[in-house]
């Protein structure tokens, strides 16, 4: 018996504001959440959404996850924020790239300046990378499997993929899943800059000839996934389907993508196969599109190789990172939400700041203005790519209902 996975709720905190629809609407309108070279979640005030205790006990990355999870669960119509079925069969899989690095940095400073006696007993529970998963599971009484995948900037997509597998395999009937990141900190920023990954210009312009690195962003994206029959039985509103997932490794270089896009291409092909879709079914590609010289070239190669040159030339390809920067371990989840909402509205949101084409980067990157999808009455199926340091490639295939 096939157990299909439906999406019944979405929530997000991003540099474009608090709320998944806010992200979708503002990005589609061409707005940018990047200021002074950073994509900060500047509209987010934890005290507006969380109790004193929750704020005090959680790193910023956990706060993002809590607020996005609250939104997603309310959006899914779960009464009192609790699972609409057996809590034991309700899982929680939330990714992060680095976890509570802000807490780690602060506490390390305190250790050096004032000694071990001044360290907060909350340090470890706040900085541990699985904190968001544990706290969200506690808050909503999710008693099935819970963990957080670790795969840098592919982690958010890996979380959704693992969640889909939990449902398909029969280990869970519903999963709260996504990713969260709050790494705009002195150490993380300096370290990414030192390896020349960050943009010097402070402009996120994926696929443009002048692109010079990624812009750090922060935030979280959380989705509620449910087994299709269980969701239908409770009369849930179904936003769409997580049709397919695949993951591969470049096994090439610790931080640089394999130039031909071989591993990424294979992930796209396998995700389509998993979804039972062909390249002609794909009406939109939400690219990883980091605005780094290497990614955007190898990803373009991967899309061409997976979809075929002819189909790749027709399909709109855009990058959410042009509007919010790179949310690292949250990116895959936030961008899956952006993909789903775009597919639902049958629209391709734009790649902002795209003006000058680069040699060989010749796909339709939807420059600067959103455009209706040309798919007539066909199903709205798209893919969302996420690639991470370590050579991790994870691809999701989503369909709007």
């Amino acid at each position, binding site marked *: 018996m096939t157990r299909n996975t439906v999406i019944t709720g979405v929530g997000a905190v991003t540099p474009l504001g608090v709320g998944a629809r806010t992200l979708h609407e503002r990005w589609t309108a061409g707005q940018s959440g990047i200021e002074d070279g950073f994509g900060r979640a500047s509209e987010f005030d934890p005290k507006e959404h969380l109790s004193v*205790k929750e704020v005090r006990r959680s790193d910023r990355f956990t706060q993002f996850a809590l607020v996005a999870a609250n939104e997603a669960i309310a959006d899914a119509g779960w009464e009192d924020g609790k699972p609409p079925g057996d809590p034991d069969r309700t899982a929680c899989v939330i990714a992060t790239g680095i976890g509570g690095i802000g807490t780690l940095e602060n506490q390390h400073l305190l250790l050096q300046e004032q000694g071990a006696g001044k360290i*907060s*007993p*909350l340090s470890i529970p706040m900085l541990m990378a699985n904190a968001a998963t544990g706290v969200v599971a506690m808050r909503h009484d999710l008693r099935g499997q819970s963990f957080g995948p670790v795969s840098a900037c592919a982690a958010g997509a890996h979380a959704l993929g693992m969640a889909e597998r939990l449902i398909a395999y029969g280990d869970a009937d519903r999963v709260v899943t996504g990713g969260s990141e709050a790494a705009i900190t002195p150490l993380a920023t300096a370290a990414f800059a030192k390896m020349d990954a960050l943009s010097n210009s402070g402009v996120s312009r994926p696929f443009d000839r002048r692109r010079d690195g990624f812009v750090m962003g922060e935030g979280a994206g959380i989705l509620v996934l449910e087994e299709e029959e269980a969701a239908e039985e409770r009369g849930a509103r179904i936003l769409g389907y997580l049709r397919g997932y695949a993951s591969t490794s470049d096994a090439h270089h610790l931080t640089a993508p394999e130039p031909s896009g071989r591993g990424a291409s294979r992930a796209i092909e396998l995700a389509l196969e998993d979804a039972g879709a062909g390249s002609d079914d794909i009406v939109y590609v939400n690219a990883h599109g980091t605005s780094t010289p290497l990614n955007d070239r190898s990803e373009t190669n991967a899309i061409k190789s997976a979809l075929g040159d002819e189909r790749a030339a027709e399909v709109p390809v855009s990058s959410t990172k042009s509007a919010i920067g790179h949310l690292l371990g949250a990116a895959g989840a936030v961008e899956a939400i952006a993909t789903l909402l775009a597919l639902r509205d049958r629209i391709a949101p734009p790649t902002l700041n795209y003006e000058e084409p680069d040699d060989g980067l010749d796909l339709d990157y939807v420059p600067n203005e959103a455009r209706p999808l040309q798919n007539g009455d066909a199903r709205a199926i798209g893919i969302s790519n996420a690639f991470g340091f370590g050579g991790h490639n994870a691809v999701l295939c989503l369909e709007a209902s």
Partner: protein
Amino acid sequence: MSTTATRQEIEQRVFQALEEFGAEPDQIGPDAEFEAMDVDSLDLVELAQIVEDDYGVQLKGEDMEGITTVRQAVDLVVSKLP
């Protein structure tokens, strides 16, 4: 660090800490139970650190065993004042 801290001062400091931990102000009082205020073992470790910083009283894990109310905690601190 004061060796002349009064019981009342210590109690007020504990009340203040509990409010910082997120307990509802109208729940806080001498006979309030930690559990009812949703104050758990992590909060108590933090409370022990505050008490040590402010009054020089060292509380170990075993000292806190069986302590369930604010009054018991304040009594414990007072009994250990240097």
